[in-house]
């Protein structure tokens, strides 16, 4: 196959490869900058330049966030006249996806830290920078949005030095929006970032950065060749399964997909090897040459345990197998996703699914519904509790419905996280109040110019309950946070049950602090009352702790629900009305004779008093 001139130029030696990630907070301009790079390197014509090439998952585009790693290869002609191969490996920018960040960073030699010069440093970027430094990456700070009238590049540069502790005096000042200063960034990447170190003559050793399932090709993997090379037709061995597969396709995105005969040492690209099992090429695994295997696997990257659990149930019981298959496919490139079958008396067969955080949960739920066409009921997310049983055993429970009787255990322990918050000094009071209301204990507070860094120990359950949204609202969007798990700690917790027409609905049970149980119970029953539609019968909603009813509301029955007029005329409209009514009920779950909508299962989550 004739190679395009650009591809020929790019097939340079290893010393002219630069692999890097862009670390940036949401809205700090990462995608716009990546677009500028592509434009400058002539990867796409103006006509082809679709806005924000990197975020190509529809959910990512809509939310303006990046979830999955992507890689784009560009050919950059530097001032020294040489053509360099730049591989941009995208990273997610949200606290829930630190795991994904670490796997992107593991494939790079450097990272660009992009900071909005009008807003300053934000907590998640700090955490991601630390990860990059841990992986020995060269971090180059870039101050973006200098075209904004309120940009303060000097102040923000000082903030980077103060908070993150990296040199930022000569940080490039750019505007990805206008293009100002962007060529200098490319030049500096070439100057400052090291080239990949691997041994091209050694046996193949490649890291699987990401894998996903394609209905036609099977497993498709994004790989980084660390040592040796991969060529089409070669038999590669997946380290964990020890299974051999013949490479049928190699491809790079430049950013248009281009097939390649090989991926050389230090390069990043896409590999298809006819792997049909969804778990055939796990993310973080090592690939080697079946004919000449390497001595050891690559270190991979940090595994993380899911901290938030929720039940996912198909609205229609027939979809259970489809849900199982969809979860298996999602798990392929989302190793943090864990699940096991769950049987709820109210909701039937489904899965208990573990997530990294709330956003991760929302994304998974949305992908299941959109990409796999599943109609799901999600129960309120819960954290993992530790139960010290009377018999000396310690149990972990991730489902409130499974909490043993109070008589069977001595102590119930909840997860505590260390939360690092960054905010302008003007909203310190409001954020502090929010944390204290969430049963937080302040550990530290440091002023960095006008920015303040606070550390709080917080029960994780309180953070799961829309802490993020409230933080944003009390700080008008300026506060950011990241967290890590600390320990399990005893707390006076009780299980709050919900009964609908006298029937306990297991999927609505939550574990709450005893002090707030009454108010939570009252709020919850009121909220349920407002989301459960009126039906043919009265629906009684009760909140209970053990056998004790602590709150009660009733959804009054509709007295009548009938079309007043129906003559010979246009029956199709009457019919459509009834079909709509029926379709509405289909989206609800029948508990006894009561139709309960999805919102009711999430009402448990909201803790704000009703406005």
């Amino acid at each position: 196959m004739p190679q395009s001139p650009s591809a020929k130029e790019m097939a340079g030696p290893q010393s002219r490869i630069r692999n890097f990630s862009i670390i940036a907070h949401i809205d700090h301009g990462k995608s716009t900058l990546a677009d500028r790079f592509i434009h400058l390197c002539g990867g796409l014509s103006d006509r082809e330049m679709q806005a924000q090439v990197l975020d190509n998952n529809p959910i990512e585009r809509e939310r303006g966030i990046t979830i999955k790693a992507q890689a784009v290869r560009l050919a950059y002609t530097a001032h020294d006249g040489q053509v360099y191969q730049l591989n941009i490996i995208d990273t997610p920018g949200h606290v829930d996806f630190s795991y994904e960040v670490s796997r992107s960073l593991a494939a790079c030699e450097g990272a660009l830290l992009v900071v909005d010069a009008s807003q300053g440093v934000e907590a998640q970027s700090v955490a991601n920078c630390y990860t990059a430094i841990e992986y020995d990456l060269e971090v180059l700070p870039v101050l973006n949005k200098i075209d904004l009238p309120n940009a303060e590049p000097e102040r923000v540069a000082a903030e980077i030095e103060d908070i993150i502790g990296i040199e930022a005096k000569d940080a490039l000042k750019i505007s990805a929006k206008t293009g100002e200063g962007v060529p200098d960034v490319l030049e500096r990447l070439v100057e400052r970032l090291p080239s990949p170190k691997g041994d091209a003559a050694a046996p193949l050793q490649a890291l699987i950065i990401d894998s996903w399932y394609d209905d036609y090709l099977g497993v498709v993997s994004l790989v980084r060749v660390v040592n040796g090379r991969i060529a089409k037709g070669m038999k590669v061995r997946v380290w964990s399964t020890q299974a051999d597969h013949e490479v049928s396709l190699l491809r790079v995105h430049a950013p248009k997909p281009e097939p390649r005969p090989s991926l050389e040492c230090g390069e990043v690209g896409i590999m298809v090897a006819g792997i049909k099992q969804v778990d055939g090429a796990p993310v973080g695994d090592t690939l080697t040459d079946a004919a000449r295997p390497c001595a050891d696997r690559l270190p991979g990257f940090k595994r993380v345990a899911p901290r938030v659990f929720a039940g996912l149930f198909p609205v229609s019981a027939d979809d259970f197998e489809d849900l199982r298959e969809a979860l298996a496919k999602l798990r392929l490139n989302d190793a943090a996703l864990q699940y096991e079958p769950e049987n709820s008396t109210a909701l039937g067969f489904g899965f208990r699914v573990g997530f990294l955080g709330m956003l991760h949960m929302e994304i998974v739920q949305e992908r299941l519904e959109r990409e796999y066409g599943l109609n799901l009921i999600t129960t309120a997310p819960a954290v993992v509790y530790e139960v010290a049983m009377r018999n000396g055993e310690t149990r972990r429970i991730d489902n409130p419905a499974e909490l043993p009787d109070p008589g069977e255990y001595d102590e119930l322990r909840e997860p505590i996280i260390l939360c690092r918050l960054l905010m302008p000094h003007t909203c310190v009071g409001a954020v502090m109040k929010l944390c204290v209301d969430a049963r937080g204990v302040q550990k530290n507070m440091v002023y960095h110019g006008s920015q303040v860094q606070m550390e709080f120990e917080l029960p994780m359950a309180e953070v799961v309950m829309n802490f993020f949204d409230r933080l944003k609202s009390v700080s008008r969007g300026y506060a950011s946070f990241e967290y890590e798990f600390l320990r399990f700690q005893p707390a006076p917790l009780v299980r709050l049950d919900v009964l609908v027409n006298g029937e306990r609905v297991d999927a609505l049970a939550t574990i709450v602090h005893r002090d707030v149980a009454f108010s939570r119970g009252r709020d919850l029953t009121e909220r349920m009352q407002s989301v459960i539609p009126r039906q043919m019968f009265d629906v009684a909603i009760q909140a209970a702790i053990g056998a004790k009813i602590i709150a009660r509301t009733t959804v009054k029955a509709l007295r009548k629900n009938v079309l007043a007029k129906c003559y010979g005329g246009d029956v199709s409209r009457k019919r459509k009305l009834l079909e709509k009514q029926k379709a509405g009920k289909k989206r609800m779950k029948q508990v006894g004779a009561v139709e309960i909508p999805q919102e009711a299962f999430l009402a448990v989550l909201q803790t704000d008093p009703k406005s």
Partner: protein
Amino acid sequence: MLRTSLAVNLPLALYVHFPWCVRKCPYCDFNSHVAAGGIPEDAYVEALLRDLDFELREAPETRPLVSIFLGGGTPSLFSDRAVGTLLEAVAKRLAFAPGIEITLEANPGTVDAGHFRGYRAAGVNRLSVGVQSFDDAQLKRLGRIHDRRAAQVAVDVARAAGFDNLNLDLMFALPQQTLGAACDDLRAAIACAPEHLSWYQLTIEPGTIFGARPPKLPDNEAAWAIQQAGQAVLAEAGFAQYEVSAYARAGQRCQHNLNYWTFGDYLAIGAGAHAKRSQPGEHALQVTRRARRRSPQAYLDLAGSKAALDSVRRVGADELPFEYTMNALRLNDGFQLVDFERGTGLAAAALDAPLAQARRLGLIIEAADNVRPSAFGLAHLNDLLELFLP
């Protein structure tokens, strides 16, 4: 022909639509158009007859008509001469069953004693007067062109013209209406001594002025209270409910509407008119619903040809249980399973599953071969009918 014998088992009616009104009411979603610059009366009657001929050419009818309903719009905007011409021409094309009921809808704002006498002479034997309310403030709000007084005059004129079968249309749960006001309305209607009352709850329909700017209506509880109180008033005055919104003195039920509710066949001519006819099928009756174009001008231009049709829908065998019950369960007496079999050509077993659900929910009462809605089922008819959707 032997193959048509099944369809002939169902009675046949005729509906004629008159699409013009003096003014469009804000709640009305029927096919009505403001008659600006007069009505092309003769041309429309000619179009109706061309349409009927086309219909009968497509599928000839030997069944006699059990009823004719001249509805609208406002049919009483048409002269007695035009109505006479129409009925005479229909009689030349179709047999009339003995005791045929011929109803004309009249607006109290368009009453003309001469016309009324003429309608009667032309063979119209039932008049349905769209009163809607006897409360002048409400009438104004409803955009009606008449007042309380005009409604009473209309009744007197009808009686004087020789009509001994009168229906009054009346609405309840009107904007801001109290229970007392609703009952006063009913008593005023009863005082007019009609044979039949259509007493129905105002509903907001999409595509109407009320749909775009909904007025504040009594809530579900208040509407229910009005209905309970009103039904007591009606019962005391000798009006028995036989359908969701229909009340009649003994022997005075509306034959034409009953034909709809018992899933009879009907021809329909006029702009926007909907017909339903059955033919023998393999596993079930082949039921076809045909609708005419809604625009009066398009209808005038195209009547008599296929181009006047707006839609033709063949009702699938799987849809028949719903189509049947959506009509028959509106009746207090419900239906006989044999009537279901006759009306759809399906075995009664097709209803087993939804009937079992309805029974469990207490929505129906079954006795021997009869299925009827319980009082609870009649109040929650939408929930009951939903069970029969395919």
